């Protein structure tokens, strides 16, 4: 039967189209309309007014800068520590299964709970971290990092790194385990040092996985507002506001759906440009090889 594959995939497709694509299109139309929830007379088309407002919105520009900072450090640190963990777990040792399960456990912790958990650790009243930082001389008094106007962003970043290391470790471990072992043996017989083996066998084999996970993860983390909403709600004074949490604030607290959708479109456009740049970069690199 020719219609069979369509029958099998129809229920999933119908849901995706009605609950994701239709709202996406409607959301795009909101960006050009005056749309607030509590005002029954709103809904008229206002052209590009929202986008003009965004261009002048200082909070938006701050949030954009914060998004780059938050995404850059989160991805870099998650990747670095995830790679080290994957390399450590790739070696067989007694108790590896248990160690692996325990190291991956943060991934299972619901994101809102990781946020609350870390907010508590940073709290000087019940958490140990301010006292440790004070003891190490990194802080002049045991204060809450999350209310620091200069370093507050590191609170959500650390929570995000804790939560996201397992993701990179799992994907990289899967890639590591697919590298043929005899390559390493041959290299060792030829007298290659461990570092040389890492550079000329491990890295080239991992490169495709690294490229794709880093790219997808960057997009995902740039959109990931949960930790910030839970831990700081964008504060103090929007210092930890990223674009995704700013969209949520506009829609959820101010109920300004039009403006929220306009910002979302800008974010979407920026992410598309980013993805395209990465794809182009990858192709040029592959061609040069």
């Amino acid at each position, binding site marked *: 039967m020719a219609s069979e594959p369509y029958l099998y995939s129809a229920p999933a497709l119908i849901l995706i189209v009605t609950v*994701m694509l239709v709202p996406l299109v409607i959301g795009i139309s909101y960006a050009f309309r005056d749309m607030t929830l509590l005002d029954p007379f709103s809904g008229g088309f206002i052209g590009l007014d929202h986008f003009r407002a965004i261009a002048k919105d200082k909070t938006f520009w701050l949030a954009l800068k914060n998004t780059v900072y938050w995404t850059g450090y989160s991805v870099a640190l998650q990747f670095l520590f995830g790679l080290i963990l994957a390399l450590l777990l790739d070696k067989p040792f007694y108790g590896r299964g248990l160690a692996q399960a325990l*190291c991956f456990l943060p991934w299972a912790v619901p994101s809102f*709970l990781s946020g*609350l958990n870390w907010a508590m650790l940073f*709290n000087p009243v*019940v958490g140990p971290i301010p006292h440790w930082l004070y003891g190490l001389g990194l802080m002049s008094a045991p204060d809450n990092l999350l209310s620091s106007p200069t370093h507050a962003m590191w609170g959500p970043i650390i929570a995000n790194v804790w939560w996201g290391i397992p993701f990179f470790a799992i994907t990289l471990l899967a890639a590591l385990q697919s590298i043929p072992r005899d390559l390493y043996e041959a290299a060792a017989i030829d007298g290659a040092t461990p570092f040389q083996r890492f550079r000329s066998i491990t890295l080239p084999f991992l490169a495709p996985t690294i490229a794709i996970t880093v790219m997808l993860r960057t997009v995902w983390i740039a959109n990931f*507002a*949960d930790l910030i909403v839970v831990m700081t709600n964008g504060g103090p004074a929007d210092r930890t506001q990223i674009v995704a949490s700013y969209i949520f604030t506009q829609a959820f607290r101010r109920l300004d*759906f039009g403006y929220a959708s306009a910002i979302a479109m800008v974010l979407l456009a920026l992410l598309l440009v980013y993805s395209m740049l990465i794809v182009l970069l990858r192709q040029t690199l592959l061609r040069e090889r």
Partner: protein
Amino acid sequence: MTRPKRLVATVAHRAAILCYVVFALFPLFWLLKVSVTPNDLLYSEGVRLWPSRTVFDHFDFVLRHSDFPLFFRNSMIVSLSTAFIVTILASLGGYAMSRFTFRGKFWIVGLMLLTQMFPLVMLIAPIFKILSPLGLTNSLSGLILVYVAFNVPFATFLMQSFFDGIPKDLEEAAMIDGATRFMAFRQIILPLTLPGMAATLGFVFTAAWSELLFALMLISGVDASTFPVGLLSFVSKFSVDFGQMMAAGVLALIPACLFFFFIQRYLVQGLTAGAVKG
């Protein structure tokens, strides 16, 4: 390598692993510690690793005098229904993706990838506007509908990877013996993918159990609040009682951890197939 050098390398390796384990577990240990610390010791023994006296008062309060059992029940209903519905839909869809080549398949895959790329916060306002006249805001069924749609694309890719691992000859043999394809699918292929379906169930359950932003937007009453919404309103409503908050946190952690140990074996395959989801 010489023997002492090898010994040093082994010790360094185990020490590094230990660092990771401690880093991964410490926040959860602190969560547990605060949840069993009596209030009078919470502030005086703030940085001690374990309180000099432990009590279960916070758990008692949370379980008997708060709305958390209701939130827990709501979250269970939402997460389990989402997980079961998604697993069924994704098994059907994944089977089609794995076994057939058909017109429009390329576009369907592209569409599903697209849904994994754009910021979901973008959908918060329109979904609220669509669901509200249908009476689906402030209701568990509305939340289930939204969660099912969000999780279906990833779950379909995951199920497809499991079906790809099963040889095609199996159902072809059954069809030569006169079975319809659906019979072959149901009686031969599905039983073989049960572990894969269990993994999908676990992934989707965890995702639905953790979802916060859409639940915050779509639910405003206590009756339909899920656990994350209840916990956050608990934080903002009262002067924060850390003990009770963390006792509630431990409750939220239990199902997530159970499902984690259940799906742990499939993590590598799952995250590689989806590659996008956290």
